[in-house]
């Protein structure tokens, strides 16, 4: 059986790739994709910890992951909606130029 560490390393790599994407990409769609990657890395961790945890017979980890995916879907929908709305408004999807939110 694959040890827990392997799952964690894969999840950490995916999280790092996601974070790098979210921080470095200038296209808002790419930033959203990075965020989705980080979320899924977290889901992978949840599943791994559940499966190797003290009570694998309870479906708690599965439930967390499914909730998380559902929330991520909603979040992606809202995020894409915002991006489209901004694009329509400012004719750009470049996050560098989206600096109107400062107080």
């Amino acid at each position: 059986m694959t040890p827990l560490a392997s799952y964690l390393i894969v999840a950490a790599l995916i999280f790092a790739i996601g974070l790098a994407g979210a921080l470095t990409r200038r296209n808002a769609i790419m930033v959203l994709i990075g965020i989705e990657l980080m979320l899924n890395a977290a889901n992978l961790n949840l599943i791994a910890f559940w499966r190797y945890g003290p009570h694998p017979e309870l479906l708690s980890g599965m439930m967390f992951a499914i909730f998380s995916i559902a929330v991520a879907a909603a979040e992606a929908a809202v995020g894409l909606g915002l991006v489209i709305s901004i694009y329509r408004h400012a004719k750009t999807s470049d996050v560098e130029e989206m600096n109107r939110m400062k107080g």
Partner: protein
Amino acid sequence: MQEAIAFTPQIDASSIARWLWLIPALPIVAAGIISVSKQPRRKLASSLAIGSLGISLLIAIAAFAHVLSGWSHGYAVREVVNFSWLTVGTQAVELGWVLDPLSAVMLVMVTFVGLLIFIYSTGYMEHDENYTRFFCFLALFAGAMLGVVIANSILLLFMCWELVGLTSYLLIGFWYQKPSAAAAARKAFITTRVGDIFFLLGIVWLFAQTGTLLFYDHGTGSMEPLALGGLLVHHSHWGLTAAGAIGLLIFAGAAGKSGQLPLHVWLPDAMEGPTPVSALIHAATMVAAGVYLIARVYPLMSAGAVAHGEAPGTTTALMVVTWVGASTAVFAALIAVAQNDIKRILAYSTVSQLGYMMAGLGVGGVAVGMFHLITHAFFKALLFMGSGSVIHGAHEEQDIRHMGGLWKVMPWTFYTYAVGMLALCGVPIFFSGFWSKDAILESAHGWSLSHAPYYMLVFGAVLTAFYMTRQVSYVFFGEYRGHSHAHESPRVMTTPLVILAVFAIGLGIIGTPAWPWFRAFLEDHTTSVEMHAFAEPAWLMLLLTSFIIVIVGIGLGWWLYGNKSPRAEEPDALEKSIPAVWTVLANRLYIDELYGATVIAFYYWWAKVADWIDREIWGDMVSTVTWLFNHWARLNKFLDATMVDGAFDKGCEEVYNGGGVLARIQNGRGQIYLRLLAVAVVILAAILIWSGHP
């Protein structure tokens, strides 16, 4: 002659005794109301004062009747009402009042004479613009004096005593525009204060020894045998018992108030006040307060002798009282011979008569002194009010050399004045002054220690008859030597004179040897009319002596002054025959000059020394301290401006700049926020890993 039946003591306070406080309270309340009413409300002021004192008189008469009925049923009435005024630790300061024959007699006298003088004042002060203020002070005085009379606590007595001194000061200085009146007021206040310091010391000592301020307190008061026994055990210096020493201290206070040697100097000057004031305060009541005080503390004064079964007059304290009284009686009578101011003659006469009362207390006991006090109050008030009527009628003229022949224009004043004068001279049988003076002479004759006081008092009586004859001849007989037209005074002034004259004649009946009611009343035993007392040889001798005294005095006076009508510039008849003696007497035996050269000169010198110390020593110290504080303040100012303010300003600036730096982070770019978040998470993770918490 007298059956000394021991009376049953009666101590439970009756309702009249419980309400006794109203007697002083009413005039004081009236004074308070007058003091806040406006100056033009003259009618209100006088009617309030007279009304309140009238009600007090009624209550006093009721109280007197109560004591009298107790006495006639064989009770020694001494009803006390005591209460704690304030409590300090375990010691309570107790006040209270007492109703006994002594206070009852005095209450009736003070309220009655006071009421007559109040009524008289409405006439005398009619033209004074400060009529309202006058009645305010007069009512306050009456209240304070009545407070002295009813006090059962030596502290309450002292408080009222000082209040009486204050009102005396206010009334002597009533016409304060006159520098002489203002000076006389100050002199009276300060001189009596000298006596009061000793009095206060006596109070403190008495309180320390007996632990109570009350005179009578159902067996534990300071005038009752238990406490007196304790006082006799303690000896102070010079062989005096504590009782004797305290008695002497209290007597010093009484001497100040009652104008005894050597503190008499204020009383003649006090005649600067309005004449009703002289009559009320400086003849009838306030100056009698000292005599009353000695009568009140008489058990203390006579403590030693009673314990050893001797006559009361032989204690050291009472011996001093007798000698001081007798000396004052002679001394003041001598000075009165050579005065020309009508009121000053009466003032010295008052001093002299107060000496008689003191001597009477010393040699004969409470009843003898108090009897003369009561009769004197009536005839001396009469004389003063008569002299006021003369002054009023002769347009503020006070020099007897500018009067004369007034008996024709002022008949009412003359006849009443003559009654007062004859009573003062002690003309036998018909006048009250004879009976009271006679009782004093009789007791002085029987004094076991020395006969000198008796001869002094007899000599004083001759002088009294002499100077009164001189005064009356100057004022009422001969030719009128004044400049303005004299007239009789209004009815409101002469009516009180007539009433007082009736009493000056009739009052003697309560103290004749045949019916010594007054003495029996004060000393709690029964008495009966025994006419054969008049036939006793000792008394007949005294009667003869009194006759001789009066005849010599009046005869000499009439021979020198009668119907002579000397011109004002002309020297006095006595001055022509013995000029050296006259000069000394006219200058009041140089007592004022003596005090001026010793006590007052010392005070001036001491004041100068104090002034120098103040300027040179304390002044320099104060300026040094000021200089130090000034410089300390400068240093503080510098520190404040540079260090405290600078640090604060710097702190503010840093916070402002820090805010600017932080504000730059919030640039609205989500990715920057995320980056910061990521960095923070990494740092947090690093901290968690390295601090050993996985």
